[in-house]
């Protein structure tokens, strides 16, 4: 079908039910517990399943292998009731033991899973993954609460009272590093510990100790170390999807080879040529195969944006992954209203500030630089982003936005600011910026229309980012903002990706470094958690136990709205410390042909493939996709309803 100007380039409507999708970079491995890339995630969603799946629009958890579940009274335990008709691609049945095996295997140290830390909220998972040990004295184990841990209330009954539950619900045991040197160091540092450990035996934490249990053939119970209301949403992540014991025990690391692999998702592997294509076809053994619309999906691993768009334009692919339309092309692409998807994502861009290196250990200096950037102008320039003023992107978690607004009002009153002053308190205020910088000891001088700040140590600041078109554009923009508003020209340094990671990781960078973060799950905690803990992913060198406690308390709160408010408080606390310069909220920024249905621009650009289908009737094709999230697709809606019917909400809402 030739382009009639309405659609971009040439459109080749497939005659059958085959989707050709550009997935991005070549995947690392077909093992869902090992790789952590987004392209990998999308392919795993075709091949593997877990207890829950993402809703195609909202990414909230919907029943998948678990047909229903209940949450324990303190939201630190869950019971899942599994389907009894689910099978692996080799025909063998899926049972609760598969879940227990998969989770244990995922946390096993030599699996080398990169995403294991997502599951650390499961009791003893972190200890097992880190090779830690329990401390046994006589026949008693030392308890964490005796050495600084929190006091736990006894657990209320929840499900059958088995031996395992008795163990897992007993007060949390103390764990120490497995490595002798590290352990000795920890022991020596704490005299109370040293005394207690004398004469004790060190028992390694094993796979059997982690908080998952097969209560019966089709019931799984998971126990967490603390309340985590966001846990359910987390379970759709590929780390928690099932891996086949039958293949792994037989083939070891080679189990992912096409001739050995066994899968449990709606599709099974048909052909795999690395850097060329990965083809999956509908799995007849899948429990819901009747509702899987596509016969086949062809994933093309193309990373170059130019090539991706070229392929789409020539009609060789039907859809491609997010972030693939360069800002320079937007103006030309925007007019294809039936194909171009521009929606906010749960992904943000900040400049992290290295608070360990002066002069950025001075809060005023940090605030000055933060206030001197006009983010609204930045997003206008970038075209495909929204301005970001906080840590958590707005418009992605509507309930959290409400809570945050409420808390923001409270804080404004606490700070005794007028609404006008509050509006730009965490925004753009160049006068205040200059004032702060001057107060900090680096006076800003005005020369006609421009400013200068001669006393500022230019050699101690730099803006580091990794090589990339948009990164460069943003850096140049912000650099000119600082020059314009503060009179300081911050030198730019771009680096190749791996070099950049190392540089940031070791906190070697002076001043600012780019931090891109996309949420692992649909809860603000995935963003606020960036700065939680001593060696956090924020790479700013900032760590505050007070902040950690605020987040912990929030996560123990059972009422979801109240929890959001507590998190908002924590967020404002972090913002007050000005450890980042928030920049933008990413947009999905991808395209699909109008005959591809069931694929939505959700905040993670994750597509549960069983809902996707090819519409052959042009009258039913997608029009004006800006409204696509509000429209109901009858086929998808019917399928969703059927699936969700099995889950009756019980217990405190998650």
């Amino acid at each position, binding site marked *: 079908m030739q382009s009639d100007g309405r659609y971009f380039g040439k459109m080749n409507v497939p005659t059958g039910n085959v989707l050709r999708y550009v997935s991005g970079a070549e995947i690392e491995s077909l093992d869902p517990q090992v790789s952590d890339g987004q392209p990998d995630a999308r392919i795993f969603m075709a091949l593997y399943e877990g207890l829950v799946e993402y809703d195609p629009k909202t990414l909230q958890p919907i029943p998948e292998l678990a047909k229903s579940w209940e949450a324990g009274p303190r939201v630190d335990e869950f019971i899942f009731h599994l389907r009894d008709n689910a099978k692996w691609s080799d025909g063998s049945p899926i049972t609760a033991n598969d879940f227990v095996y998969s989770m244990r295997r995922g946390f096993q140290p030599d699996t080398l899973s990169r995403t294991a830390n997502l599951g650390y909220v499961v009791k003893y998972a972190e200890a097992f993954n880190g090779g830690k040990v329990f401390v046994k004295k006589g026949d008693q184990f030392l308890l964490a609460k005796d050495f600084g841990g929190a006091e736990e209330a006894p657990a209320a009954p929840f499900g059958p009272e088995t031996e395992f539950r008795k163990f897992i619900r007993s007060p949390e045991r103390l764990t120490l590093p497995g490595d002798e040197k590290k352990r000795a160091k920890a022991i020596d540092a704490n005299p109370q510990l040293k005394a207690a450990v004398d004469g004790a035996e060190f028992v390694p934490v094993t796979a059997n100790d982690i908080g998952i249990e097969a209560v019966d053939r089709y019931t799984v119970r998971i126990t967490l170390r603390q309340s985590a209301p966001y846990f359910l949403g987390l379970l759709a992540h590929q780390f928690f999807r099932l891996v086949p014991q039958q293949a792994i025990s037989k083939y070891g690391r080679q189990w992912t080879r096409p001739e050995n692999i066994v899968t449990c998702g709606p599709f099974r592997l048909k052909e795999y040529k690395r850097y060329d294509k990965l083809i999956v076809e509908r799995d007849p053994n899948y429990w819901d195969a009747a509702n899987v619309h596509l016969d086949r999906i062809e994933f093309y691993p193309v990373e170059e944006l130019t090539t991706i768009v070229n392929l789409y334009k020539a009609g060789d692919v039907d859809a491609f992954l997010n972030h693939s339309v360069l800002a320079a092309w937007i103006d030309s692409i925007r007019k294809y209203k039936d194909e171009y998807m521009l929606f906010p994502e749960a992904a943000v861009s900040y400049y992290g500030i290295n608070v360990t290196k002066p002069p950025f250990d001075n809060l005023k200096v940090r605030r000055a630089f933060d206030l001197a950037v006009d983010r609204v102008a930045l997003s206008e320039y970038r075209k495909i982003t929204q301005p970001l003023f906080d840590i958590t992107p707005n418009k992605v978690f509507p309930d959290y936005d409400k809570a945050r607004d409420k808390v923001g009002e409270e804080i404004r009153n606490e700070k005794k600011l007028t609404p006008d002053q509050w509006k730009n308190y965490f925004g753009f205020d160049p006068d205040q910026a200059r004032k702060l910088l001057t107060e900090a000891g680096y006076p800003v001088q005005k020369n006609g229309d421009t400013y200068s700040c001669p006393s500022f140590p230019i050699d101690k600041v730099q803006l580091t980012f990794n090589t990339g078109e948009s990164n460069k554009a943003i850096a140049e923009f912000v650099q000119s903002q600082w020059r314009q508003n503060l009179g300081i020209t911050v030198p730019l340094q771009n680096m*190749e990706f791996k070099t950049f990671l190392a540089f940031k990781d070791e906190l070697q960078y002076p001043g600012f470094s780019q931090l891109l973060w996309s949420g692992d799950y649909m809860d603000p905690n995935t963003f606020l958690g960036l700065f939680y803990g001593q060696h956090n992913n924020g790479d700013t060198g900032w760590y505050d136990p007070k902040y950690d406690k605020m987040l912990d308390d929030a996560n123990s709160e059972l009422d979801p709205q109240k929890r959001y408010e507590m998190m908002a408080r924590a967020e404002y606390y972090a913002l007050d410390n000005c450890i980042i310069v928030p920049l933008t909220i990413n947009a999905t920024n991808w395209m699909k042909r109008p005959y591809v249905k069931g694929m939505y621009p959700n905040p993670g650009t994750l597509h549960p493939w069983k809902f996707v289908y090819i519409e052959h009737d042009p009258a039913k094709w997608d029009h004006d996709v800006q409204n696509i999230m509000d429209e109901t697709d009858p086929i998808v809606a019917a399928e969703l309803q059927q699936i969700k019917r099995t889950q009756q909400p019980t217990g405190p809402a998650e």
Partner: protein
Amino acid sequence: MSETLEPIKGVSPWRDAWKRLIRNRLAVFGLAILGILIVSVVIGPSIIYWTTGYAYDFIPADNDLVKSMPPSFAHLMGTDEAGRDLLARVLQGGRISLMVGIISTAVSLIVGISWGAVAGYMGGFVDNLMMRIVDILYSIPYILIVIVLLAVFGGPGTPHWITWLSDKIGGEGNQGLSQIFLLFFALGLVSWLTMARVVRGQILSLKNQDFVMAARATGVSTPAIIFRHLVPNALGPVIVYATLTVPSVMLTEAFLSFLGIGVQPPYASWGSLAADGIKNIAFFPWQLIAPGVTMALTLFSLNFLGDGIRDALDPQTRKF
């Protein structure tokens, strides 16, 4: 008959060559185009700047309106995605590309001539050793090494003396310049090998001639013999090879910039401009056509010229 007997002017081989060169129409054509290009590249940017205010790094304030415009009277080659005039950028890029070509060739000349001359003159074990090294280096797939080298050294790994040099020349913190210096060396070091072989061959055939023996007899030191007597006489093939190296080095630099490990912003070379243009090929093809055609034209004329020089200097050996 009053004849004034003019002393017979011996025609030096250089004047001979020059005469032959002029007679070669294609070479003259190439020279002419090259001349135009070089002049454009040297004074072009300034002219453009005076008449229109466009510079290679000038982003107009209302650049939204002029982004990625096709060629027009206002912008003879169109604009790039930031709204910068493409003609200005192509000319500026020409400066960098030509500079890289010439300087890298100079580097390879210096290293290659010295190496080959010493090896050729010394002969024996030294010669063997030096040429074995050349052989070894020759068999390394250089593209691989260069990619690894530049991926490694571009960035905080850049050796301090390079950064010092570029700071002196380009100003503090001007990272683009240190990349360029790196490029000079990377490229120069890659092409000296054949130069060394060529020079060595020449030296070998020259070193047993009388004038060398005479120099030795009068006690001229070895380095002086090599560099002041032998090398100047070996220059013929060297010049030929040099004129052919420039375009090949420029191609290599363009290739590296295309890969993203050559010239860095704010500097642009034809290679990096082409890379930018290729990115937008589905939308704004002129962004590739402009630098691509200019570069092709330049290399075209360089090659013609090189051919002509070679024919002029040594009409018997039209190898290729």
